[in-house]
């Protein structure tokens, strides 16, 4: 509503009904569509905003004992006695507008890992020294079938091995020169933006895997957080 006009009325004029109605009609019309011209910089404060524009969703497991141990070379969801580390968003999922950023993070404490095959890359045998985490998103489009997408992967090392030499430099009969790194924390965050409309997020899971099934990954406390900033 940029302008509300008034007609100047001078002494001895007899205003017409149209002239008198004019400013009020203009205001009625213009006030149905207030725009930037009517808003001063910095005019909008917290009290003007709709509540719950930001939302934190989380699953936190503060237990000091270990989760179900992981020997799988494909991703499995962290699990404590049948309770997975995941955030669920209810039937049908939570609608996330197209391109709206969704912050997702995982954190936890790796504990007493068991390491059998620890050397680093050798002759194309992969990287048994590594384990990795993944944040897996389950979603549907317009209520359709559930689909999944990885929001990211993050890798860590079981031990300090950094070469192709499995053996100690001084004591070649020892099983490994790599030193186990137990009780180390992990933490990571990513931003996911749905590239399509009608995106409904159903679930976020924290998953992990090892690169050699002779090694065992153990984790105690762990958590995932999701932060949605509504537009």
């Amino acid at each position, binding site marked *: 509503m940029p302008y509300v006009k008034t007609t100047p009325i001078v002494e001895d004029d007899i205003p017409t009904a149209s002239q008198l109605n004019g400013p009020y009609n203009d*205001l009625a019309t213009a006030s149905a569509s207030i725009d*930037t011209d009517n808003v001063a910089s910095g005019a909008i404060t917290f009290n003007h905003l709709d509540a719950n524009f930001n939302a*934190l969703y989380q699953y936190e497991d*503060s*237990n000091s004992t270990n989760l179900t141990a992981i020997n799988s070379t494909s991703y499995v969801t962290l699990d404590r006695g049948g309770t997975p580390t995941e955030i669920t968003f209810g039937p049908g999922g939570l609608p996330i507008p197209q391109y709206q950023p969704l912050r997702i993070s995982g954190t936890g*404490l790796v504990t*007493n890992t068991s390491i059998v095959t620890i050397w680093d890359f050798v002759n194309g045998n992969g990287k048994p020294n590594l384990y990795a985490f993944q944040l897996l998103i389950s979603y549907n489009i317009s209520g359709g079938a559930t689909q999944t997408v990885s929001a990211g992967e993050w890798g860590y090392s079981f031990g300090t091995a950094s070469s192709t030499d499995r053996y100690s430099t001084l004591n070649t009969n020892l099983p490994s020169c790599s*030193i186990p790194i137990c009780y180390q924390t992990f933490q990571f965050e990513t931003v996911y933006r749905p590239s399509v409309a009608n995106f409904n997020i159903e679930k976020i899971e924290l998953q992990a895997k090892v690169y050699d099934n002779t090694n065992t990954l153990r984790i105690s406390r762990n958590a995932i957080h999701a932060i949605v900033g509504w537009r």
Partner: protein
Amino acid sequence: MPYTKPYTYTTGATLTAQNQNSNDEAAKKYVNQGIVVGDFATETLDTEDIARGEFEPITKSHSFVTGHHHGGHKTPRAQDRAYFTSHIKPSLQVSNTYFAYQPLYETGTEINLEYDADVIIDFGAPFISELNVVQTNEWWDSLQFLEIEDLSSNTVTRYGVTRAYSFEEIPLSSSIPASGGSVDPFGGLPPSSVLGNEPDGKYAVRRWIGWRKGLSLTAGRYLIRSVINAKVEEGYTSSRNFTIEILYKSN
């Protein structure tokens, strides 16, 4: 809803003061308090229309319309270290059953929530636990937590989801001590297998400690800090990152 004029002027009708005042009163009320969200044209507001936040350089916090952000960042320089010591519990320095948590300075702040809020706290720092000189050398584990004190009730809470350990850094030699703490930095695997990699041994127990904690807090004042139960005579963190994000939920 938009302004609606109560009285319509008609040619030939006698205008009363009441009629005139009713239109002016309605206009006054509308422009003062009657504008609602629906009156704004779609996508009419820019970010500059939202009130600017304020930066507080003393506490390193920035207030925004929808919350606050606090950031504490320290460099690896020696003068930025936050030290911890087991000397605060002289006869029980390496006890696995007695806990005395000491705050690590500049790993937190006091926050004042004007409204109920979701709070996200992030911490990350390398912890160094030096070799004990008087006490025994046994890869001692110093336990670290996030601790929050609610200043309205003076209740202190440590959160298990931020549990982490810093281990005494023992240079490896032909004599390898057993782990004496509650947890073993090598997970029970004998460190003797690392002979020949002595330099690696010391740094293999150095840990980066990182965590994120989410909270739903009611309006009020809170002290937030990282605390540690030291089992070494001298330990410290140098480079540290500590941020608090406050997302107000309702007004």
